[in-house]
C-alpha cells in the first residue's frame, strides 16, 4: 500500500500554513500504508478542534463527533466490531479538558484503540485561549495576566492509571513519530500518543524551535516496563522526554473481557435476536 491510497485529491484544508497538523497527517498516512491498514477497515473518531478535522482530510471511515467526546464512541465502535482499527484523535483541549473524564476512564477500561492527541498547548479553533496543557504564565485574550493553574500532565496521569501504552512524540520529527504511532497501533490495548506540535498562529511561545530545545528522546537503555521510573521521568520539569514511557503488556483489553466474543467472534451486526431463547426467558416468569 501507498500513501497515495489515502489521498483525497484537491481539498480545502482549513489549517494555517506551517501548522503541525500537516506533518501529523503525512506521518499518519505513511504509518497506515506501512501497516497495510485499508481505509475500509479503519475508523478515525474525533471531537472538535483543528486537529480533530484530520479524518476529513484523507480516505477513511470517520465519526467526527462532539467536542471532548471522541473516546466514548471510539469505545462503542471497537466493542461493536473488534475487527476495525480504531483511532481516537483530537487536540489537547478536547481530550484533556472537555473530555477529561473520558480520558481517565478510557485508560481504565482499556479498549484496543489508539489515542492520538495533538498537543499544541492552546485552543486554535476558537482563536487563542489557554488549554489544559498551557504552561503557567502563558498570556492569552482571556488569561490576560497569564495562566494561573499548573498544566495538566497527561503522561503522568496515564502512568498513574497504569495505562497500557504511554508515549509522547513531536510533530516536527516525522521518522521518530512514525515509529511511535506504528507501535501504538500495533499495541493491544489503549495506547496514548501525545504529540507536541506548534500552533503557528496562536502560540508564539511553544514554537518548533522551543520544542527542539526543550525535549529529548528516551534512549534505548530506558526500561519501558518500569512504572515507577516512568512516573519519575514524566514529572521532569527541565527537559520534556519524548518516546515510549511505559508499556503494560499484561492488561486485558475491554473487548477481551466481553463474554460476547468468548465463543463467537462475529461482530454485532452479524448477529440476530434469538427468539426461541427469548420465549423461554419470558415463560420462566410463570
Amino acid at each position, binding site marked *: 500500500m501507498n500513501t497515495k491510497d489515502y489521498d483525497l485529491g484537491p481539498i480545502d484544508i482549513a489549517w494555517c500554513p506551517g501548522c503541525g497538523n500537516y506533518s501529523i497527517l503525512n506521518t499518519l498516512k505513511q504509518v497506515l500504508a506501512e501497516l497495510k491498514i485499508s481505509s475500509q477497515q479503519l475508523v478515525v473518531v474525533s471531537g472538535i478542534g483543528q486537529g480533530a478535522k484530520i479524518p476529513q482530510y484523507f480516505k*477513511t*471511515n470517520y465519526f467526527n463527533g462532539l467536542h471532548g*467526546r471522541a473516546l466514548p464512541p*471510539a469505545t462503542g465502535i471497537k466493542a461493536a466490531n473488534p*475487527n476495525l482499527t480504531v483511532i481516537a484523535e483530537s487536540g489537547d483541549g478536547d481530550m484533556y479538558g472537555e473530555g477529561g473524564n473520558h480520558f481517565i476512564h478510557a485508560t481504565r477500561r482499556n479498549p484496543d484503540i489508539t489515542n492520538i492527541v495533538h498537543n499544541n498547548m492552546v485552543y486554535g479553533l476558537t482563536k487563542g485561549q489557554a488549554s489544559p496543557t498551557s504552561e503557567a504564565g502563558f498570556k492569552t485574550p482571556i488569561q490576560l495576566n497569564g495562566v494561573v493553574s499548573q498544566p495538566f500532565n497527561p503522561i503522568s496521569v496515564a502512568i498513574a492509571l497504569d495505562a497500557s501504552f504511554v508515549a509522547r512524540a513531536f510533530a516536527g520529527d516525522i521518522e521518530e513519530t512514525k515509529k511511535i504511532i506504528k507501535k501504538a497501533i500495533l499495541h493491544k490495548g489503549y495506547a496514548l500518543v501525545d504529540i507536541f506540535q506548534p500552533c503557528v498562529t496562536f502560540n508564539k511561545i511553544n514554537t518548533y524551535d522551543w520544542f527542539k530545545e526543550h525535549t529529548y528522546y528516551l534512549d534505548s537503555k530506558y526500561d519501558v516496563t518500569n512504572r515507577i521510573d516512568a512516573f519519575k521521568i514524566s514529572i521532569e520539569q527541565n527537559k520534556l522526554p519524548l518516546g515510549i514511557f511505559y508499556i503494560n503488556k499484561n492488561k486485558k483489553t475491554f473487548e477481551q473481557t466481553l463474554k460476547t466474543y468468548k465463543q463467537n467472534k462475529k*461482530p*454485532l451486526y452479524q*448477529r440476530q*435476536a434469538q427468539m426461541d431463547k427469548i420465549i423461554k426467558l419470558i415463560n420462566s416468569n410463570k
Partner: protein
Amino acid sequence: MNDITIVLCGEAGQGIQTVEQLFTKIVKKSGFNVFSTKEYMSRVRGGSNSTQLRISTGPVNAYVDRIDILITLSENAIKHLGNRVSKKTIIMGEKNHIKNNKNLKVIEIPFSQYAKEIGNIIFSNTIAVGVLSAVCNIDKKVVTEQVEDFFSRKKKNLVKNNLLALEKGYHIGNELVKNGKARINISQPTKQKNDIVLSGTQAIALGAIAGGCNFISSYPMSPSTGVLTFLSQQSNDFDIIVEQAEDEISAINMALGAWYAGARAMVTTSGGGYALMTEGISLAGMIESPIVIHLSQRPAPATGLPTRTEQSDLEHALYSGHGDFPKIIFAPGTLEDGFYLTQKAFNLADKYQVPVYILTDQYFVDSYYNITSIKLDRISNMNYFIKTNKNYQRYELTKNGISPRGIPGYGNGLVCVDSDEHDEEGRITESMDIRTKMVDKRLRKIKEIGKETLLPKLIGSKNYKTLIIGWGSTYHIIKEALEKINQKNISFLHFNQIYPIHKDTLKYLKKAEKTIIVENNATSQFSKLIKLHTDYEINHNILLYSGLPFSVETVEKQIKQILKRGQK
C-alpha cells in the same frame, strides 16, 4: 368482595420485597390475578417503605388508596400510611408496631419473637406470608411448594427454616380466620393460571432483547437502573454488551458509536441523567444515528424525589437536543406496551435513523401484574443498514429524507459522519445552500414517520359525551376509575405514543362535550402539546405531582366532582 388489597409497610432492609415477590407467586399460582406496586424512600436502611398487593379473580392492575389488610413491620408504618388506613383495615403487627391505635382493628402478632425462635429475625417475612396465605384461604400445598421453590433458588439451607416459618404463619392465620378476627370473603379462583407475572422493568428489558438490543451503556439512576441490571444478568445468554459508563455523556456517545458500527444500542436513564445526554441526542439528530432511550421519569427538577413517580419529563424529552430534527416518543401504559413498543423502538430507530424514546416512570417500572402471554409471532426485526459500494455517500439527498445507512467495514464504501453540518459525503460544509438542503432532508423524514404513528386507544363507547385523556402509566388507573363510575357516556382515550401525535386526535376531542386530562405533572404538559398540534384546549385537568401515583379512588372522585360542577 371482588378484590383484596394487602399492604406491607416497614423499614428499608427488612425484606418487604421478599414478601412481595414470594406472595405474588403464591397468589398467581393459586389462580388469582395479582397486582403489586411499591413506594419507597431514597435510602438503604430505615425510613418507611410500603408494598401494595391486590388479589382478585377479576383483573386488577392499578394502585388504590384502600387497605384491607395491613402488616406493619415498624413503628412508623401506620403513621406513614396516613388516611389510607381506615376503621375497616385489619392491622397485624408486633406490639410495638401497633401501639396507640386502639380505635383501629389491630391484631398483635409477635413476628420477631417467632422468627427468632426459628433462628433469625428475617424469617418474619415468611411468617407474614404464611399468615396472609391462610387469611386469603390459599391452598396450603400451593403455598408450601412456592416457598420451597423460591428459597431453593437462593441457598439450600434456607428452605428448611423458611418452611418452619411458613408453618407458623399459616397456623396463626388459620386461627385468626376461625375466631373471626380476620375473615376475608373473596371469591376463590377455580383453576390455576398459566399467566406470566412481569414488572414494568422486565417488560421493557425483554422488549429490548426481542428488538435485537446487543449493546447498552448507562449510568445507574433510579428508577431506570433495573433495566441495566436485568440486561446485565442476561448478557451471557443473549450476546449483549453491557457497560456501566463513567457518566451519562459517555453512555450516550458510546451507544451512538455502537450503532455507527452496526450494533443495536440503547441507554436507560432518568430525567437528570438524560439532561446530560442531550448534546448526544442533538448529535444523533445531526448524524442521523438511530438510538433508543429508556427514560424513566421521577419528580424533578434536579435531584427531586429520587424514588418517586411523576410524568414531568415529556417536554424535556421532546424539546431537548438543540436544533430541529425528528424523534419518536412512546409512553407505554400496559406491560404489553412496555414489551412491544420497546421491541418496535429498535426497528423504527433503525428505519428512520432517529432517536426513539420509551417514556416510563417509577410507578410503571416497579409495578408487577399477571398477563396471559407475550406473542413473539406478532413481531419481527429488520436490519436496515446496507453493504456499501465504492461511491457510497452516507447523506445522499433522497426523496423521503432517509439516506441508506452504511456501516464501516461492510462493503467497499467509506462511512463518514460529522457533527458539523455536512454534505452528502458527510464532509464538513459551510455552504448555506447545502445546509438548507440537509435540514430539509432531515425534517422530510417526519412525513414518513407520521405514516406509522399509533392511534390512541379508545376505551369505552364511541358515543361518549365526556372524554378522559391520559398517557403512559396512568392507563389502568383511569380505566378502573371509569369502571367504578360506571357511566356509559364517559370514555377514555389513552395515548401510548405521545410524539408525533396522531392526526386523528382532534376528531376524538371534538366529538366530546367535555374533555378531562389526567396527568402526573404540575403544568399539564400533554394538554399543552395537544393544544400546540390540534389547537384544541382540553376543558379540565386532573393533576398530581406529590411523588405518588394516582389512586383509582382519587381519579374517580375528581372526575365525579368535575362532572357535578358541570350540572347546574
